[in-house]
């Protein structure tokens, strides 16, 4: 028997080996390149920077974390980013749910396909193009401003912009603007899991609920919503973690205050403080780990 034949027989008789053969290359990549580099980064957070020499000291210590949490400015950064992530998640859920509901229950056939496309279309264009486009739209000389002025509501826009914290010199330079862009960009990631969850609710359940005397609002509260919560939770994983780590939108459409992502970028770049940058990277990992634990209880993992 030829070698090839022997090999193919052996693989047929022991499917496990075939499986291993198929899995080992991607697992190697996952293990070494991806997980390995992540681990390396986290390891750096336990090193420290020698202020005198500007070199990284390869000794385990907690100085990087101390540096992070002792400075109120740094703590501000973490809080600011987390708050934005939460607010964006809530907004995406609030806007995405009605859209998903409408698509699932009130469209069919080609109309439905059309709406799917409309939800997915933004994902086909470049992230940077979208962000810069929004910057132009929100700018003081941009469309939104012009629109408000046309309606004679220029004063109202100024009023909103002069609000503390969320306001700024213009929409494209404020947390409000940032919030709008974040919500826009991540909306499809919220809508799609919700549609999937809603589609999985058998229509007969909704009919049974009505048959047993429940009015539409009751049917929603008691039957539809409990079955859809996992989908909303799954969508929220995307919006939360994506916002938490983003460093481009705060830069392009933002206030001077840094977000975690920007801090990491700056620290590992110009400041050359790799340990601090690494420490800043560990923070969102921990936050998201906690978030995932919470969201797992809601069944999000079953709805992904």
């Amino acid at each position, binding site marked *: 028997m030829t070698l090839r034949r022997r090999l193919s027989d052996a693989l047929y008789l022991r499917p496990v080996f075939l499986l291993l053969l198929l899995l080992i290359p991607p697992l190697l990549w996952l293990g070494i390149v991806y997980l390995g580099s992540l681990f390396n980064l986290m390891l750096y957070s336990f090193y420290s920077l020698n202020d005198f020499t500007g070199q990284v000291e390869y000794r385990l210590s907690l100085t990087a974390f101390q540096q992070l949490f002792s400075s109120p400015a740094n703590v501000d950064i973490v809080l600011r980013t987390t708050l934005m992530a939460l607010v964006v998640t809530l907004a995406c859920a609030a806007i995405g749910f009605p859209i998903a509901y409408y698509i699932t229950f009130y469209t069919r056939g080609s109309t439905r396909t059309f709406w799917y496309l409309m939800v997915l279309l933004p994902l086909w264009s470049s992230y940077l193009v979208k962000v810069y486009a929004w910057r132009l739209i929100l700018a003081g000389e941009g469309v939104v401003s012009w629109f408000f002025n046309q309606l004679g509501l220029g004063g109202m826009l100024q009023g909103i912009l002069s609000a503390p914290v969320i306001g700024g010199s213009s929409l494209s330079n404020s947390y409000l603007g940032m919030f709008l862009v974040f919500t826009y960009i991540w909306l499809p990631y919220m809508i799609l899991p919700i549609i999937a969850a809603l589609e999985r609710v*058998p229509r*007969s*359940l909704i*009919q*049974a*609920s*009505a*048959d*047993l*005397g*429940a*009015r539409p609002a*009751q049917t929603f509260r*008691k*039957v539809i919503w*409990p*079955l859809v919560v996992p989908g909303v939770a799954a969508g929220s994983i995307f919006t939360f973690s994506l916002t938490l780590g983003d460093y481009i939108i705060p830069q392009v459409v933002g206030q001077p205050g840094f977000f975690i992502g920007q801090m990491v970028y700056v620290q590992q770049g110009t400041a050359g403080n790799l340990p601090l940058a690494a420490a800043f990277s560990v923070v969102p990992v921990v936050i998201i780990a906690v978030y995932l634990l919470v969201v797992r209880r809601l069944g999000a993992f079953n709805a992904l």
Partner: protein
Amino acid sequence: MSSAVRLIQLSCHFGSVRAVDRVDLEIYPGEFFSMLGPSGSGKTTCLRLIGGFEQPTSGQILLFGEDASRLPPYARDVNTVFQDYALFPHMNVRDNVAYALMVRGVPRVERYRRVEEMLELVKLAGLGDRRPGQLSGGQRQRVALARALINRPRLLLLDEPLGALDLKLREEMQIELKALQRQLGITFVYVTHDQGEALSMSDRVAVFNHGRIEQLDNPKQLYEHPRTEFVARFVGSANVLEGGLLGLPEGKFALRPERIRVLPGLQNGANSLLGTLLDIHYLGSQTRYEVQVGAERLTAVGPSEELGLKVGDAVTLRWESHALRPLQGVS
């Protein structure tokens, strides 16, 4: 006698498809009424119209004397047992059964007391804490039944509830359902494609075909005196003969296989046909004979006895004159 359900010239069209086509029927209070027919005959759509899950294109639905055509399901005194049971997967059995009471604001103690009563009635006592996913098909079916009955509706709709059960369980449930209906006195409207089921359980049966009712009668009348060829073939099996073949006036006649006796050889006489034996099927207590008569192929069924027949023999088919039923066209 006032009626429980009255359908007046009821139609339901889906685009160009006439699922229900000008149906008139009346269901009496306290009766076990079945709607029988093949898939796509309109029986399920009719049921859903009564339940309020479809809107009629034209015609009226009267429930206990009142026009319910535009009422949503939650406003009708009707409950339904769905084909897939439609149990709420995120609630346990107790909460499933109590649902109708919960949405009406019945206090919890009272709710759970009535749930226990219902579970006793459908022989599921003690399973209140289980989830639907942990139950067998037969158990789920009973939960669906309990859930639909707890609010004591005046009308219960059942959409092929026994379809997913195996034969033994199905037969058991048929007996139980019939007993339950008698005990509770509720009007049951039962949809099925199984004519044996419809005949054994119902007080009256409506046979549907292409959105219309071809015959509405009690089981005995339906079987003994089918009105159309479709009914003759669908309820039981039948040989349909042209009048001309028998020297009778124009028209079709139905002859049930069990009414035909097979006699060896060619024998003259009234109510007979001569033919050639095509096939013999031994079924145990009965034997089925297939006979070629002219261009027709007839079936006769009789008790298994030694007739000394073999395939290819000449045989005579004979029947009692009253066994031949005249058929009408569809009205």
